[in-house]
C-alpha cells in the first residue's frame, strides 16, 4: 500500500520515528553485550522479570475461576500456592537485583531514570502484594486488613482506600496495581535497553571515550567540578559510540548497539 503524501505533522509517523530513534530494533534486542556483563548478579534482573510473569500467569488462572476457588479445590490451592511463591521469589530476586545495582551505582552515565523506575516498582509492588494478602478471604486477610487500616487511616488514605473492603482491594489487586507494576517494569526495561547496562567503574581511561551527546545532556560542572563517579547524567546511551560510528572493538561489527 502506498501513501501519496504523508503530512509532516502526522502524529503516527512522528511517534514511530521518535520511538525508532530512541530505541532502534538492534538496540532493543541486541545480539551482544559488553564483555563486562559477566557476573551472576546480572541474573537477578531477568529473574525478577520472570517471577513477575509467573505471578501474572498464576494470577490470571486464579482470576478465571474467581476469588473463592482456591479455598475449595486442590487445583485452585495449587495455583494459589504458585502465586504466593512467585511473589516471594519476585521480591527476593528484586531486592538482590536492587542491591546489586546499588553497588554498581547503576544510575551513572545518565541512567538515573533506570534506577528511579526500579525503585518505584519496588515501592508499588508492596501495596500490590498487600492488596493480595487482604483479598485472601482467610484469617490472614482478616488480621492484616484490621491492622493495616490504622496506617491507612492515619494518613487519611483510608477515606478512599479501605483495606477492609474486599471488593475494592480485590479490584486494586487484579487490575490497578498490576497495570502500574507492568507499566513501570516495561519503562524500566526499555530504559535499560536504551541506556545499556552501566559500565564498570573505570580504573583508567583506557576503555572509555569522552562524554558524548546524550538525550539527557550532562550538566555543566560547577567550579570545582562534580566528583568523578558521582555524575547522574551524561554519557552516550547504550554505549553507542558518538555519531554511531562502527565500533572497532565489537566482534559482531555493530555500531555499539544496546548494552
Amino acid at each position: 500500500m502506498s501513501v501519496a503524501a504523508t503530512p509532516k505533522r502526522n502524529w503516527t509517523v512522528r511517534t514511530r520515528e521518535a520511538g525508532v530513534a530512541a530505541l532502534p530494533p538492534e538496540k532493543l534486542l541486541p545480539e551482544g553485550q559488553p564483555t563486562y556483563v559477566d557476573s551472576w548478579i546480572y541474573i537477578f534482573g531477568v529473574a525478577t522479570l520472570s517471577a513477575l510473569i509467573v505471578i501474572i500467569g498464576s494470577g490470571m488462572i486464579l482470576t478465571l475461576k474467581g476469588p473463592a476457588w482456591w479455598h475449595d479445590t486442590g487445583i485452585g490451592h495449587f495455583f494459589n500456592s504458585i502465586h504466593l511463591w512467585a511473589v516471594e521469589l519476585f521480591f527476593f530476586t528484586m531486592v538482590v537485583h536492587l542491591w546489586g545495582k546499588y553497588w554498581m551505582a547503576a544510575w551513572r552515565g545518565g541512567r538515573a531514570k533506570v534506577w528511579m523506575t526500579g525503585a518505584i516498582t519496588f515501592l508499588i509492588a508492596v501495596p500490590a502484594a498487600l492488596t493480595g494478602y487482604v483479598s485472601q478471604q482467610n484469617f490472614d486477610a482478616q488480621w492484616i486488613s484490621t491492622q493495616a487500616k490504622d496506617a491507612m487511616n492515619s494518613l487519611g488514605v483510608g477515606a478512599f482506600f479501605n483495606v477492609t473492603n474486599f471488593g475494592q482491594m480485590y479490584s486494586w489487586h487484579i487490575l490497578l496495581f498490576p497495570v502500574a507494576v507492568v507499566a513501570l517494569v516495561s519503562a524500566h526495561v526499555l530504559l535499560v535497553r536504551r541506556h545499556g547496562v552501566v559500565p564498570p567503574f573505570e580504573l583508567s581511561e583506557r576503555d572509555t571515550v569522552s562524554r558524548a551527546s546524550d538525550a539527557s545532556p550532562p550538566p555543566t560542572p560547577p567550579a570545582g567540578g562534580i566528583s568523578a563517579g558521582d555524575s547522574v547524567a551524561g554519557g552516550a546511551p547504550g554505549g553507542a559510540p558518538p555519531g554511531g560510528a562502527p565500533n572497532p572493538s565489537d566482534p559482531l561489527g555493530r555500531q555499539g548497539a544496546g548494552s
Partner: protein
Amino acid sequence: MTRFTDKTSAWKGPYAPYDLVKELCIALGVITLLAVVLTVLFSSPDDKPSTIASWSTAMPADFVGTAVSELDGTSGTAEYGPPYNNAAEGQHAAFLKPQEWLGVSHPIDTPNAYVFEPLQTIPNDPAVKNAVATYKAAPVKQQKEWSEAYAKALEKATVQPNGTLKVPPGEYGPVPVIMGALLGLAQTGGLEGNLLRSSQFFQTDYTKPLLLMADGKLLEERAEADHLLGDQWGMMNETGSYPGQSWLWLYTFWYQVEPFKESENADILVVLVMTVLSLAFILIPFIPGIRSIPRWIPVHRLIWREHYRASGVG
C-alpha cells in the same frame, strides 16, 4: 593505589555474543520450576477465617462484652474517630492531621450499627422491642450505669449448655435482654448477614463485621498464637511458619522502638518516616554521599572482577 577516573562514558570495549530472549526463556523456566517445587514442598497457608457466629459461640462473654462496649460507645471503633466517626481527632504528626482533614467517609454509629439495627430484624419479639425502647428512653447517665454494671458482671458470667450467658443479679436495666437477643442473633449467623447488608443486594464491604470482630479478643488471640501481633513483628509475618511480607521489615522495625513503640500517633509517624526513606531510596542518584558509597566500598571489584582482570587493573 589505582585512582578512580571514572566518567561513566560510553563503552568502547569488546562485546560478546548474547541471547537475551533465550536468557529470559531459561530464567522463566527456572523460576516457574522453583515456584512449582516450593508449592509441592510447602503448599500455602489458608487458615479458616473467624466468623461472628463462631466467635459468639466459642467466646460468648467476649462477644457480649464487645457488644456492650459498642452500645455505650467505649469500644475501639466507637472511639476511633475518622474515617468512622467524630469521636476523636485521629492521629497527627505536628500540624499534619490528614485523618481529621479527610473526615468521616465510612460512618459507623456503633450503638445503631451493631446493636439496634440488627435487633430490628428479629420479628415478633415484644420483649426485645420494649428493652430497646427502655434503653433509648433512659438518660445517658442511666444507660452508662446499666452497661458498666453489666460489663463488670460479665467477668463472672457462666456459659449455659444452650450457649447463653448467666450473670450474677444486678442493676442492669434492659441491657441483659438486649444482649441476650443480640447473642442469639450472632450465634445463628444472623448478625453477620445483617452487618453486611447494604442498599444493594450484592456487597463486598466487610468493614462493619471486621471492625466489630477486631474490637473483641478472638482475632487478637489467634494472631498472638501465630506471632502476628505488632510487637511480634507481625506485619511481616504469615500464619504458620510461612514467609510473609518480609519486605515490610523496615516498616515493622519502627514499631519495635521508641518513640514509635508507645506513641499514640505511631502509625502516622512510622508512615511519614517510611515516606521520607522511600523518597530518599528513589532519589539515591542525586543524594551526595549515599550515591558515592558504592565507589568507596568496592563491591564492584567483585562484581566486575573478570573485567578488571582482563583489563589488567584488577
